[in-house]
């Protein structure tokens, strides 16, 4: 399970390493982050944190439910 998580993390990093230089070519989307006092950077940071914690909690909840079900089934 952890192995697959680490593999996934490396896959995401690999994709990011390829995508970010392309994205960083000073296109219109990126320039908007400099507007209005760079407030979009703060929004981006908040969104990353919320999505990160939400995904983690969601997966953890699913895993716990699965194990609880297994234990429950074994008892019966």
């Amino acid at each position, binding site marked *: 399970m952890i192995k697959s998580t*680490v593999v996934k993390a490396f896959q995401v990093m690999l994709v990011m390493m390829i995508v970010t230089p392309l994205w960083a070519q000073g296109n219109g989307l990126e320039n908007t982050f400099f507007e209005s006092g760079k*407030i979009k*950077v703060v929004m981006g*940071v908040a969104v990353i944190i919320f999505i*990160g914690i939400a995904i983690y909690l969601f997966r953890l909840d699913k895993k716990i439910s699965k194990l609880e079900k297994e234990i429950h089934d074994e008892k019966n």
Partner: protein
Amino acid sequence: MLGYVLVATFSVPLVPGGLSINIDALHRGKQTVIFTGYNTHFQDDAQHLQCFVGVGDQYMAVENILIQDNQHVQFEVNWPDTLPSSAIAFYVNNTIDGSVYVSTALSNKEIAIISNATLENTTKPNVLNDEHTVWGFPFQPILFETIRNLMLHVPMWFTMFFLMGIGFVASIKAMRGNVNSDLVAVASVKVGLLFCILGLITGSLWARFTWLTWWTKDPQLNGALVVFIVYAAYLLLRNSIDDEIKRARISAVFNIFAFVLMIVLLMVMPRIADNSLHPGKSGNPAFSKYDLDSSLRSVFYPAVIGWILLGYWIYTLQLKFEKLNDKINRR
């Protein structure tokens, strides 16, 4: 508590400040400058508005001041043939905003810089009010609104330290082969790694728009990456040992080393190294009066506590999972 923190993080306004000027080069003689302020009140307090230019530690008056709106004021600077310094700052002052300024690099090919040149005023012009009268987060050049990230990015690392601390204490107990403590350690490290990843990604995004790069060879950044890799290695190592007593002991030793390494890499090294971009590093005290004023503190301290509590709650869930997992594996 996090609710208060998040509302305050996004609702407290920034105090007035100077955002930019419309010129990037100096020209001899008269030059028209448009000064752009941020959250300023140029129009609202037009009768007290003063503009002047600071050159080194001397000052110059400006002419033909024309207020366009609350954020924009236009004026004309009559540059002399020689200036005492190339450090030039444009000031706008009124009683609400205090003195706001823009100090930026200007290319100069026409005006000679002679250190003993004198300007008309050697002292700062008399102003009614040098400090702003508006409450809010401090306005810092380059950072602007991203100072709010102090409540989001920085507590990620505090939470990681807290969780890794739990793991460290648990690992000391687990060294004697205590399997339960081993579960505590692995749960806290997993959640700590979540906060480490969030801290790395948010820091990278913040860096892109303030330091203008996704990644830089700041000792704090590379140290954080090494810490991430070391703790990921801990999880891999722990997972590769089948015997549970052995697993508890070996991974506990690794975790204790990882914690010490984290303290050295993140708390000690950036302070010793002289090329850290992080505030409070490179020999500076971490939270000087200048860096963290009362408006930031009133949100930052609850933010740290709130995020740590959230991290602890996620850790209890993770621990529940680890215990259930262990229970099933034992059968």
